[in-house]
């Protein structure tokens, strides 16, 4: 079996590419080393749909960011992922900062953005009363918003799979060679996947894959960002994404009203050496707390329910590296997709599809494209009548398992049947375990449901695949030494 295209990496870049390629009469597969899609860079970030004013539109990055931003609303309509166009406020707390804010405003205008406002102090506080009273002014971009990044990746992959794209989890490509017009991708388990074209969407490991395939040598350097999540009852939750004035290296520490109802503060930006170093640190929390408290009222240590860190796949230069390899044939590089990669991703998918076409891949649109995903009912967002109707058909919609986020057993079953069989996979699909008790009450029940629905024995269930087993076996299997 020879695929027409294999995408290595099921993060947002790979998933958006698969979503596009699913529309054509080709055989396509996505491989990922992790237990689920979006488990690398894409799962741990700020979840911002950026406004397109941080970078000049002369870069590929800004061009795709602006295009991607314009595609999100219609995609949400068809693919059903949690996303709210909240708008973005960049708040200035001194006259000096206000000058930078004005520059951003003019860059936004230059990038062709609509509805931008350069705001006085009064207008700023009217738009966002949660800001501290010493705010001097702001720049308002109504086109920005917040998205659940993992659910977005799940939705893209779901649609790709509905249109026939194959998804191989737990499949790590270790090397590739091109012979007789075909790529032979060797996987860690010894299997070989063959394909005419390869897309390198391997995120943090795109440099290693490129090298292992004989293509360009470059370096991805992970830049870590820590984020802290505040309970949905926090007084700090603003109505818009609050940005500080950016510095040269970072867009700064934000206050983010997540689509799920919690408030997120972060991220930091630190270069690290280890591509798997997602540890949080104590010092950074104090810094993030102080910075966000200076901007927004009501940010409190008491409301923190969890912390996480993500790694940005930073590359030399300021731009994304999306281009056909100049060293090996039929190999598309999609590397260095850091912020605003999430926003740009729909346009990245289209761009890579066009690059493949330019490289000779024949793309004929299918006559039976499935544009819409089936919905996944979320009981917490439905009317009484809608819930009652669901319960008539399936009573597991009346059984609330995750009490903090009000997630029913039916929603967990749905996630497992969509292929999400790890605890994190179920959590990302449903929000079960994401609330203030962090799974303290419901984790045992969730494990039982995953095991029952997937057929995986309880003791083999994992947090996120590989050796992340939740339990060490059945009670009574260890020798007792007292």
């Amino acid at each position, binding site marked *: 079996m020879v695929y027409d295209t294999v995408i290595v990496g099921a993060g947002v870049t790979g998933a958006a590419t698969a979503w596009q390629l699913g529309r054509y009469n080709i055989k396509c597969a996505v491989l990922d080393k992790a237990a689920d899609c979006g488990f690398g860079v894409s799962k741990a970030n700020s979840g911002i749909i950026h406004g397109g004013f941080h970078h000049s539109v002369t870069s590929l990055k800004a061009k795709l960011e602006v295009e991607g931003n314009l595609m999100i609303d219609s995609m949400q309509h068809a693919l059903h992922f949690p996303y709210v166009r909240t708008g973005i406020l960049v708040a200035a707390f001194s006259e000096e900062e206000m000058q930078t804010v004005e520059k951003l405003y003019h860059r936004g205008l230059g990038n062709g953005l609509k509805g931008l406002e350069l705001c006085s102090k009064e207008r700023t506080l009217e738009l966002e009363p949660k800001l501290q009273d010493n705010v001097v002014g702001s720049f308002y971009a109504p086109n920005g918003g917040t998205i659940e990044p993992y659910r977005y990746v799940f939705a893209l992959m779901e649609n790709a799979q509905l249109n026939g794209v194959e998804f191989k989890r737990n499949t790590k490509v270790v090397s590739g060679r091109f012979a007789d017009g075909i790529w032979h991708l060797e996987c860690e388990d010894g299997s070989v996947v063959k394909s005419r074209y390869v897309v390198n969407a391997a995120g943090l490991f795109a440099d290693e894959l490129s090298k292992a395939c004989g293509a360009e040598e470059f370096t991805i350097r992970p830049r870590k960002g820590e984020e802290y999540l505040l309970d949905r009852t926090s007084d700090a939750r603003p109505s818009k994404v609050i940005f500080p004035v950016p510095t040269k290296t970072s867009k700064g520490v934000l206050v983010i009203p997540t689509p799920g109802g919690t408030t997120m503060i972060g991220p930091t930006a630190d270069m690290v050496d280890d591509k798997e170093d997602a540890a949080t640190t104590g010092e950074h929390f104090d810094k993030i707390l102080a910075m966000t408290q200076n901007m927004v009222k009501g940010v409190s240590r008491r409301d923190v329910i969890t912390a996480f860190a993500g790694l940005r796949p930073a590359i030399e230069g300021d731009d994304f590296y999306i281009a056909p390899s100049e060293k090996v044939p039929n190999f598309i590089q999609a590397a260095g997709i850091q912020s605003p990669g999430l926003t740009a991703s729909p346009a990245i998918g289209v761009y890579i599809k066009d690059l493949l076409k330019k490289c000779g891949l024949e793309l004929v649109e299918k006559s039976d494209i499935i544009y819409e995903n089936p919905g996944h009912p979320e009981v917490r967002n439905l009317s009484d009548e809608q*819930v009652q109707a669901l319960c008539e058909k399936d009573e597991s919609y009346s059984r609330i398992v995750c009490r903090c986020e009000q997630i029913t057993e039916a929603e967990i079953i749905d996630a497992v049947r969509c292929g999400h069989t790890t605890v994190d996979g179920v959590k990302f699909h449903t929000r079960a375990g994401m609330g203030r008790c962090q799974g303290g009450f419901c984790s045992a029940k969730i494990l039982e449901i995953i095991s029952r629905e997937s057929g995986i024995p309880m003791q083999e269930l994992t947090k996120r695949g590989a050796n992340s087993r939740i339990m060490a076996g059945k009670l009574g299997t260890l020798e007792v030494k007292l």
Partner: protein
Amino acid sequence: MKNISCDVLVVGAGAAGLCAGSVTSKHGLDTIIIDREDQPGGILKQCIHNGFGLRYFKEELTGPEYACRVAKLAADAGAKIMTGTTAVEAKKNADGSFTFKVFSQKEKVCYISSKAVLFTTGCRERTRGNIITPGTRPAGVFTAGAAQKLLNISGYLPGKCAVIVGSGDIGLIMARRLKWCGIDVKAVVEIMRHPSGLTRNIVQCLDDFGIPLYLGHSVTNIYGKERVEAVDITPLADGKPDFSKTFKVDCDTLLFSVGLVPEVELAKQLEVKINPATGGAFVDDDYETTTPMVFASGNGLHVHDLVDFVSEESERAAGSICRRLSGAKNSDKVPVTVEKTLKYVVPTQATRGEKQSFYFRPLIVANKATLEARADGKIIKKRLIPFVRPAEMLEFELEIPAECKEMEFALTGGELL
């Protein structure tokens, strides 16, 4: 949508809700007790150790035995217990009654209206996130109660080699439980200089098994990308970690027993005011919150050491509900406060000329201290307490003088933390 009416809606069928429900039912009030779980009894169901009921039932019971006893009391008295039922919304009606929207296995989405509400919602455990423990986020990190449920209800081992963060009672009980399952327990790490659990649990669960207790220490890093591999333990000097003395301990499991938080999110929807010192509602000596006809008791009000106290307190709260629904008016009350030697007092309002039980949590450590009750600044009653620890709740019975304007309690002698 079905609408159900009753006199008293009790939210939570743990020991508090079941004991209260048995009282109101016996009194002839139409009582519904709802609970999210499939069986009544709350957290007691997973507490398979003994030591429960010595005061309330005058015999030593396990948690599930205590749960069965109180569930039977409620059922025999005629209370309707609706399990598998989660309340998602609460509102106050114009006529003073209350309506709760619930999801129920039996009734699907339905509404329950009542004349009075008693919140016996218990606590949730504080998590690693709440205390902001740095490090990676591997599998093998549990709250002590979640691990207890996994072990005692589901029958699975949370790991093979554990470190326990915090010396709360659940953590101590779990240390012993893990040992009995063949799981090594390397350390119990407590940030305070004194244990947060009961002394009897330190002796019976740690000392008897040779498990080291590190007081004044903190877990400052978690290692392991997939499963927990080790933790850093750091002693505190002047309240700050002294990283020069950090040591690393290998383990594959980390349990957090770092405190309990009363579950008050639903009560807040009824505009119940929360006492920051307890995390539960402000209540008067009728256990009535700041919202009339809304009551609270048990661990959802303040964290108790013993379930026996929870049962007694909830019976008193239920008694108040019976009186109030029979037409008794809420009397004029005296404010009750504490000095800095005590963390809190429950209740914070009391009736003049009536005998009351007050509960306190000390902030001092002493082998002898005096608990003083002061009416308008004058000591009216005092008691010598031989053993004072923050982990041990204090109880004090007192009649408030008829002419008193304010009451204050204090502990004198001993060391302020």
